[in-house]
């Protein structure tokens, strides 16, 4: 239904289970958890003392001066973007390679932005006065800081954006990237999300919402989507970036295509600021619209990377929404939640899970959901171990939902 086809030509990630895409993907296939106990002193008073921190510190990868001018969320975004850009076959910034800087855009999202920079500078302010607040505090803490750092690195001049829709942000950046290409405003867009909020304040706040798992003695077993023993999500951190490109631009430079972004749909519940619509109506509409936009039938969807964060209500509401969106074809899709291993990366979740969805189509393999020992009967084909996908033209969905009632579904078609 749209003339401009959008394809994925590069992938980058730094996650709780690996410092790049290859190590992240193999960890997901092996079912390895990135969740660990927080032994730091600040975690002692918290109810939830577990988190999924990145496997590789960004400061080990980035040059020191570059890193110290970025919030941790910016560091992670840059690490993922550097990998994605190189993976797409680019050896230098736009202008030096086959991309016009004025046709290169960026959409890198964040859920909470530079929260650790904000809080550490506030600590300095209280302890030592305004003179000890960093002159870099504003560019580091502003939510668009990571997107701007990525844009500067690759010389993006078609616009740099930061969609903010809580835990749907990563997917919303992909939807925005698709729009920019389809509207003819860019040929190539670096899209993704980043989050670095493992800090006592966000953890205390999510804890007060009763959103976090308190399975402190069993970190690897704490994130258990759809399992009857689930008791909340595990906070994760990391970043993922995808290179989106018009199919025409990709073909002209002979780029490798992982998958096509067939449809990207955004809806809002208008129900409650924090609770999902219990009937999942907004989520259902997002999935249905993504399929319509991509000229896909429900039966084409053979895989879904669900939002499923391991909360008691959310996982079940999403399953209902999937059944309502796909109807009789719902049982034909292998459904998984990679959050069982990575924890919940908030504003980076949709981006990381889109990388996993794209790789599932590319390799025809779905990573299983770990800890699914006593599953709820949700009427779906939940993958409790690695599963194969058939050859041929198939499609997959990636869902992300966020506080505020944001629902974003991305439909990918195999290349």
């Amino acid at each position, binding site marked *: 239904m749209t003339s401009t086809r959008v394809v994925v030509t590069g992938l980058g990630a730094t996650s709780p289970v690996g410092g790049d895409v290859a190590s992240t993907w193999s960890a997901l296939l092996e079912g390895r958890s990135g969740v660990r106990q927080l032994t730091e002193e600040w975690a002692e008073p918290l109810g939830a003392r577990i988190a999924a921190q990145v496997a590789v510190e960004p400061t080990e990868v980035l040059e020191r001066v570059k890193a110290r001018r970025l919030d941790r969320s910016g560091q992670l975004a840059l690490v993922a973007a550097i990998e994605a850009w190189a993976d797409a076959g680019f050896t230098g910034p736009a202008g030096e390679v086959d991309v016009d800087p004025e046709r290169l855009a960026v959409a890198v999202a964040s859920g909470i932005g530079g929260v650790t920079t904000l809080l550490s500078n506030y600590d300095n302010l209280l302890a030592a006065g305004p003179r000890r607040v960093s002159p*870099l505090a504003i560019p580091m803490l502003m939510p668009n800081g990571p997107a701007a750092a990525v844009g500067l690195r690759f010389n993006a001049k078609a616009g740099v954006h930061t969609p903010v829709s809580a835990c749907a942000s990563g997917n919303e950046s992909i939807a925005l990237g698709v729009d920019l290409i389809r509207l003819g405003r860019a040929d190539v867009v670096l899209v993704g999300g980043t989050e670095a909020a493992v800090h006592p304040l966000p953890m205390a706040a999510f804890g007060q919402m009763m959103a976090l798992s308190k399975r402190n003695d069993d970190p690897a077993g704490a994130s258990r989507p759809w399992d009857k023993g689930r008791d909340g999500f595990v906070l994760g951190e990391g970043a993922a970036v995808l290179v989106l490109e018009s199919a025409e631009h990709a073909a002209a430079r002979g780029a490798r295509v992982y998958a096509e972004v067939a449809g990207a749909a955004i809806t809002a519940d208008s129900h409650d600021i924090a609770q999902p619509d219990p009937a999942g109506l907004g989520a259902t509409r997002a999935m249905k619209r993504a399929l319509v936009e991509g000229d896909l039938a429900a039966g084409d969807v053979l895989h879904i990377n669900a939002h499923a964060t391991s909360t008691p209500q959310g996982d079940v509401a999403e399953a209902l929404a999937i059944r309502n969106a796909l109807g009789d074809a719902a049982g034909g899709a292998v459904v998984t939640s990679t959050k069982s291993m990575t924890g919940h990366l908030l504003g980076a979740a949709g981006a990381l899970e889109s990388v996993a969805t794209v790789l599932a189509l590319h390799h025809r393999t779905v990573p299983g959901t770990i800890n699914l020992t006593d599953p709820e009967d949700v009427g779906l084909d939940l993958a409790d171990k690695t599963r194969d996908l058939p050859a041929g033209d198939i499609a997959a969905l990636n869902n992300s939902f966020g506080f505020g009632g944001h629902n974003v579904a991305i439909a990918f078609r195999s290349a």
Partner: protein
Amino acid sequence: MPSTDEIRADLADIVNEVAGIPADDVQLDKSFVDDLDVDSLSMVEVVVAAEEKFGVTIPDDEVKNLKTVGDAVSFIENRL
């Protein structure tokens, strides 16, 4: 009382930490902006770190007069 070169060396370490400039390049005749590529925000960081290191106060109005490393070293020397 540290010597001029000791102050320069300490300042060079600060510039290296903040801006990544090799400490050996931070010589008295070098301009922070034109030679060492220290931007305005990094200069604020250098000034605050120098205040802590040397126990002096460098008012904001003075910072614009500190064009070269030598200017900064002299300013600090005069206040120690």
